[in-house]
């Protein structure tokens, strides 16, 4: 390919400044590529060795953002992990549940962010990390108060089952519904929110009633 040149811009041919420059560049590039390879191979289910190496490399890879820990390059993992989650709240015990939704909810990047946030919440709710879930709920309560004027009384996170292809072919009408119904919906997390006189929020997770002790039966007299 011929170089495009303008008058007076051509520099005379000359040897590189020194071999040491090329050596330094080569070593830096080689080390960086090795680190990139380690980070890329650790994207999904890293081994103990990979985790240990990444821990040592953390001061380098984290600021540059090249550690792709659990970044979802896979698009979907099907019903195992990708399910439709809905976050709902109600201001008082007597009210209907209201869903939270994204500002630009027409399948935009905004809606993807909402789904990632809810899946993050669902993951830790399944793992019973109640401390983290409580912090998420407190932030959610502050957000609802900012929009609605008062702290919600209850919040919940629900998971909506997605029918597979065979079920959809059989004409299951729930496959066409984009809004959740109670049929087949699983509540992952539900919590009650209290606010004291100083405005501090307290979150109490509601236990699953099916996991409570069965009622005691009285024996007939």
């Amino acid at each position, binding site marked *: *390919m011929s*170089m*495009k*040149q303008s008058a007076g811009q*051509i*520099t005379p*041919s000359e*040897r*590189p*400044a020194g071999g040491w*420059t*090329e050596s330094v*560049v*080569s070593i830096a*590039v080689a080390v960086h590529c090795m680190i*990139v390879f380690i980070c*890329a*191979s650790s*994207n*999904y289910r890293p081994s103990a060795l990979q985790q240990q190496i990444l821990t040592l490399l953390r*001061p380098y890879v*984290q*600021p*540059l*953002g*090249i550690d792709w820990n659990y*970044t*979802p*390059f*896979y*698009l*979907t*993992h*099907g*019903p*195992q*992990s*990708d399910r439709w989650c809905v976050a709902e709240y109600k201001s008082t015990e007597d009210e209907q549940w209201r869903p939270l939704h994204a500002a630009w909810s027409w*399948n935009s*990047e*905004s*809606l*993807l*962010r909402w789904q*990632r*946030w809810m899946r993050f919440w669902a993951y830790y709710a399944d793992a019973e990390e109640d401390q983290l879930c409580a*912090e*998420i709920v407190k*932030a959610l309560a*502050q957000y609802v*108060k*900012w929009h609605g004027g008062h702290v919600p009384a209850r919040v919940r996170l629900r998971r909506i089952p*997605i*029918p*597979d*292809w065979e079920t*959809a*072919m059989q004409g299951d009408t729930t496959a*066409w519904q*984009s809004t959740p119904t109670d049929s087949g919906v699983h509540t992952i997390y539900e919590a009650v929110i209290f606010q004291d006189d100083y405005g501090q929020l307290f979150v109490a997770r509601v236990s699953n009633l099916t996991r409570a002790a069965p009622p005691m039966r009285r024996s007939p007299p």
Partner: protein
Amino acid sequence: MTVRAELRTYYGQLGQRGDQAWRHFWLAPRSDSAMSPVRFVVGCFSGCYFLMFLGDLLTWFGPQGLWPRQLAAQVATNFGTVSSFRFSLLQLSDHPLFLWVIAGLGIVNSALLIWGVSRRSTHVAAIVNALLILSFVHRAALLTGAFEAVLSVLCLYLCICPGAGRGAASTNSRAGALATPERVTIRATVAMRLIQIHLSAAYFVGGCSMLAADVWWDGTAVWWLVTLPATRLLELRPLFLFSAGLFLVNALTHAVVVFHFAFPVFVWCQPLRRLMVHLATVVWPIIALLSGQWAYGLFMVFVSRAAWLDAHTPASHNNERLFR
């Protein structure tokens, strides 16, 4: 010839050829105008990224946002048990004015990066762009996906050599002289190769992580993509709900996986490079339609073309400069 002498000869020649190949791959100077197409694409999509965040900037990062700074710091450090080196300008304040200024700065800077007023200002714009993109990514890593992961890395490599002064004008300047004279430098080669390698890694990682789930093996992944309400751009389920629809689902699923492994291998072969890039132009929009990740899909289309097809070949050795 003895065995020792044969081995010495073999490894000696191997070392020499490896050295020559390494020098040709990494250290052969090229015109920095080769980086202009990548800079143009990265600038456009960086601007899109900031624009897409405008609608819910306060929703996530505001004082009553869903992801406050304290919670972000707690999660990043696992409640103080590990060290975090993710720096973010957005951690400095959650005041709405501050957030709007940062987002606005990102949009304006993206425009400067696209336009490329001068070489020095373009370099500054590239560094600022990388800083802002990484700030958004690190502020809420849980909200990021593949698009942000690839975009942030390319923004970083662009700081090495963002390209010649005039943005898009220098990419197709076949007819006349460039507005800004070209510079032949090794930095352009290093930056371009790092971008190509990291993009190849993104393809590979995508393919490997897909195969970690059964749905990509049994060919039903595309159905789950089109069924999830969050990921639908269009209602595509009727296309697959007929007697042979499952075969179509299977074919698309397998095609996506094969493409993710084939592209990073065959794009390095000169005769097949153009074919692979044209294939990417077809496949990625389909992936974007199916998955709803239109930003990621379109970004990969344009950046794959810019990184492999529009990049110039290495310049001759008549005009050599190192690190200018």
